[in-house]
């Protein structure tokens, strides 16, 4: 189906099912239970799962397949956001034109940056992308203020022309973003057995985009083009002595991943019509690197898992404060309770980035293949234990070997 073999079709269907059922899956605890704080089924968070999933899938097409480690991908996300917001200011708050423009503009921008930075490989490529992205960030903050609105960020106002839409709604407010009339922020709620499920238009829109993005990435992974990209990563010398020019392949991968980032940026702006330069900063580029590596670079599902993992725990950890901790450890004797809370305190709440940094170091050091490799190790270990001795080392079912490294 859809040009996929049976195994991949099944795989895609599972991904589609998981994506569509996210409002249920992320809401496993009843509202009244003490564990309700671990639920993640609110529109805002679910949207971010899908959007950052797209961002990471795109980044993985570049880094996972070719091994080129870009430290400037957030620039494309930012450019996508700006483009989409401009479309909503000038044309209409329907999200479609904004997203199309976001993809086109970030693709062109990626073409420019890729053309320059892909002339080098290894760490020089990383530093070039970093420098170019940081340059864009600085420009967005300074000279380009007429386009980016500087530190305040680009927003919709009541003075925007919106020639195909309305400048203001009848009641005098800024029109909401919508898809042919279906407002992004509108949700339906369903309460059953104390569980509250929210079905948000914005989330489902992002989810459909994410499924398309995933499907395209699956096709690329399985295509001769994907094979060439893996060849670039493995051995560029042999590549050129085989009569292949590596540069257009890497540039194509770079532009594709830039367009994915642009789509993600456009979606961010569609959910909340606001674009700020901080979205382009290199720490934001670092975040997508972390997501991809944490999940498993070079695997199909890894980046999505990584993005979901990070966005989920970012949200949960940020909510845990001392009061919550004391609640959890109330069963301990008083002195011990205070001590345990004291120990955990730096890592939660505002300390989420500390936990993230530590986690990232641990993954890079001990599990370079990320969560996917971890999962495979566990399942292999389990299999080996079950059929003792008969070693069935099947490796990853739907992924090339995933040792991330820079193409030298």
């Amino acid at each position: 189906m859809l040009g996929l073999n049976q195994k991949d079709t099944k795989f895609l269907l599972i991904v589609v099912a998981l994506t569509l059922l996210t409002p249920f899956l992320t809401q496993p605890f009843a509202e009244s239970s003490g564990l309700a704080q671990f639920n993640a089924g609110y529109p805002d968070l679910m949207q971010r799962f899908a959007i950052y999933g797209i961002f990471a899938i795109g980044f993985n097409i570049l880094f996972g397949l070719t091994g080129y480690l870009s430290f400037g991908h957030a620039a494309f996300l930012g450019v996508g956001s700006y483009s989409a917001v401009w479309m909503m200011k000038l044309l209409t708050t329907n999200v479609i034109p904004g997203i199309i423009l976001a993809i086109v503009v970030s693709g062109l921008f990626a073409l420019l940056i890729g053309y320059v930075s892909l002339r080098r490989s290894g760490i020089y490529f990383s530093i070039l992308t970093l420098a170019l992205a940081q340059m864009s960030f600085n420009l967005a903050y300074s000279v380009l203020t007429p386009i980016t609105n500087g530190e305040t960020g680009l927003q919709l106002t009541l003075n925007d022309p919106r020639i195909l839409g309305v400048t203001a709604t009848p009641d005098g407010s800024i029109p909401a973003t919508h898809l042919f009339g279906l407002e992004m922020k509108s949700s339906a709620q369903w309460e059953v057995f104390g569980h509250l499920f929210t079905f948000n238009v914005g989330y489902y829109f992002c989810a459909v985009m994410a499924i398309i993005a995933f499907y395209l990435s699956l096709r690329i992974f399985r295509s001769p083009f994907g094979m060439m990209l893996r060849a670039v990563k493995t051995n560029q010398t042999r590549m050129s002595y085989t009569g292949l020019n590596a540069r257009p392949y890497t540039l194509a991968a770079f532009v594709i991943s830039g367009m994915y980032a642009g789509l993600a940026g456009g979606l961010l702006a569609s959910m909340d019509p606001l674009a700020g330069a901080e979205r382009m900063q290199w720490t934001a580029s670092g975040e997508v690197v972390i997501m991809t590596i944490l999940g498993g670079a070079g695997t199909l599902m890894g980046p999505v898992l990584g993005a979901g993992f990070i966005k989920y725990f970012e949200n949960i950890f940020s909510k845990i404060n001392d009061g919550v901790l004391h609640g959890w450890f109330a069963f301990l004797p008083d002195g011990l309770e205070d001590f345990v809370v004291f120990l955990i305190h730096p890592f939660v709440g505002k300390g989420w980035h500390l936990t993230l940094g530590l986690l990232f170091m641990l993954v890079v050091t001990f599990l370079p293949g990320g969560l996917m490799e971890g999962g495979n190790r566990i399942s292999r270990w389990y299999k080996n234990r079950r059929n003792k001795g008969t070693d069935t080392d099947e490796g990853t079912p739907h992924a090339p070997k995933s040792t991330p490294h820079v193409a030298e």
Partner: protein
Amino acid sequence: MGILEVKNVGKRFGGLQALGDVNLSVAENTVHAIIGPNGAGKSTLLNVLVGKLIPDTGSVMFDGQSVLGRKPHEINQMGISRVFQTPEIFSDLTVLENVMIPCFAKRDGAYRMHAFETVEDEVDIVQKAEQMLLDVNMQDKLRMTASSLSRGDKRRLEMAMCLVQEPRLLLLDEPTAGMARADTNNTIDLLKEIKDSRDITMAIIEHDMHVVFSLAERITVLAQGTPLVEDTPENIKGHPKVQEAYLGQAHG
């Protein structure tokens, strides 16, 4: 007129004259060996032939076209393939994929983006690659990752990757360097088989005289960057100048 014509090629690195005035003609469908003591300029010559180095003087013509100033991938597209001293393969990819990539390069040129076909859909390329691997006796290793192959198999795989492109000229850079005797003999047999079964020109740079004399139809002896003699193996064996070059090296 040979398929490969090297005329008056000279290359200097700083104060070192790596190649003096090299003239060489490789006739079509022959195996031509280039031998010489260490530092004779064999590797420099090879790097000139594949476009990695640009000589200071002279010309290199392949089939009537100049190869100078072209990039390695362009030279390969002209019909020259190269086997390296240590096999250069795509070690993270499977054996079959390793052989399919040159098939794509041969069919589609230096770049073509097939992003929406699957690899399996390319039936003729898969078949061609499988046939090639059958020819080099690796049909049972199609799905193995190339990095897990033995050294000898890696060499075989690299040869298969070159041959599947049906090159008009195959350059071999010390194909048996660092190999055990048995592996060397296997490689010689493989090369003999290749030579007998297809129309191919080979230029071999080699240290091992055993390899050279079992394969070559024509031998050029290089010493201090200039060709000393060019002749058939029988005549080279007893040639006084050659012995002098090698013995002189051994004594000096």
